């Protein structure tokens, strides 16, 4: 116990800082991938064949690529080869590249979650929207997507939870986040190794559990009555 307490003396502020990085990665990547995923979902249900093909190709390629490879690609290729500099701050640059990588990856999953929501909307809703003279985009935006989102809360919640945990892969993109710090701590404080694992795991559980409960509550509350 004493050893564990001294771990907090030694690393406490870095633990919090690193985990804060995970939460920030989650926030920005969730926002960006939700927007990108919505655009992809609109493409996939659009009447234009080339957009549908692009959306399908994006989802199938990105979804089937390991996240580690996407994040490593960001650092080794985009930064290493092409010298991509989003900012002059060295660490912040990796952080932003990681957000882009996480967003690109999870957009494919958000797209499919939203599309599953679209499938909960009866075809007649789209026909009625078209019949009053709405063209595709307004019909999608005003009639289909509002109902699709409400029908897709549970699957979108699953994607969000996966995203939170996947932020630990950002270590592959050279971001100082919690799993990187965990490795460091394990190296120097092998005496409390198991407790280090449990601590980090518990931090994620504490964040994810309420989100899961919120998602369940929202998906019941916002369900579209038919």
């Amino acid at each position: 116990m004493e050893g564990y307490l001294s771990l907090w003396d030694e690393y406490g502020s870095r633990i919090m800082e690193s985990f804060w990085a995970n939460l920030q990665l989650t926030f920005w990547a969730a926002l960006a991938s939700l927007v990108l995923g919505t655009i992809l979902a609109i493409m996939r249900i659009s009447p234009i064949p080339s957009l549908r093909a692009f959306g399908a190709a994006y989802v199938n390629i990105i979804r089937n690529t390991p996240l580690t490879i996407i994040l490593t690609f960001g650092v080794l290729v985009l930064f290493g080869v092409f010298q991509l500099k989003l900012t002059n701050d060295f660490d912040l640059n990796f952080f932003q590249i990681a957000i882009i990588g996480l967003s690109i990856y999870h957009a494919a999953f958000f797209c499919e979650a939203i599309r599953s929501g679209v499938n909960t909307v009866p075809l007649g809703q789209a026909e009625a929207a078209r019949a009053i003279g709405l063209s595709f985009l307004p019909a999608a935006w005003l009639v289909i997507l509002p109902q699709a989102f409400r029908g897709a809360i549970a699957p979108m919640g699953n994607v969000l939870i996966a995203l939170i945990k996947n932020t630990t892969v950002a270590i592959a993109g050279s971001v100082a986040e919690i799993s990187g710090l965990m490795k460091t701590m394990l190296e120097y404080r092998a005496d409390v190794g198991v407790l280090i694992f449990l601590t980090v795991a518990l931090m994620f559980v504490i964040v994810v559990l309420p989100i899961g409960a919120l998602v369940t509550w929202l998906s019941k509350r916002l369900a579209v009555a038919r």
Partner: protein
Amino acid sequence: MKSEQEASASHAGPIVELSGVNKHYGDLHVLQNINLEVSKGEVVVILGPSGSGKSTLCRTINRLETIDEGSIAIDGKKLPEEGKALAKLRADVGMVFQSFNLFAHKTILENVTLGPIKVKGMKKAEADKLAMSLLERVGVANQSHKLPAQLSGGQQQRVAIARALAMRPKVMLFDEPTSALDPEMINEVLDTMVGLAHEGMTMLVVTHEMGFARKAADRVIFMADGQIVEQSSPEDFFTNPQSDRAKDFLGKLITH
């Protein structure tokens, strides 16, 4: 009362004009060389057995179903294939569906105002006023802040009629509007439709309600196997059908 409709005429010919329309579902030839004209203020009822193509015909008129051959014109304008021009023309054609299809996430009032606001660019206050007067007319004004799922089927269908009317359509299409309703709710919807017919609305109605055809139709069209087999006044059709298919169809109705 038909004069008001006629006064706003922009085109002397028929409101709906189909010529040589053909459509296939794979091997099934669902619409076979259909020629049909509906004049301004006319109420045309399409009758026929299930699978005769009458619903498909109705849905081709605002291009919810595409056609393989032939042409369809609304008020003299040929139906565009897609895009904004098609959306614009659809705004002139009101449609009432068998399954109501009210926007499930919007209130009754919002269902009616969505088209005027988003398609016609009407101000919200003006659209609300128009919607309330239409809801009043179909008898559901007191339900305007509820969601569709809170209304009975008959009430939902009357809202759907109000939603279509809010676009001030040149013609109203009804695709089996009472087929999904409980028997006691059929009359409230039919009464609304008879009222519309008497006010001079141009209507094309696919239905199994023979009473409505007798009461409100100017012309009855009988379809079977993708073809228009017979057309005449309701009086002639019900008392003196010409074709064997129509005699057979009417015979089966009377025995029940």
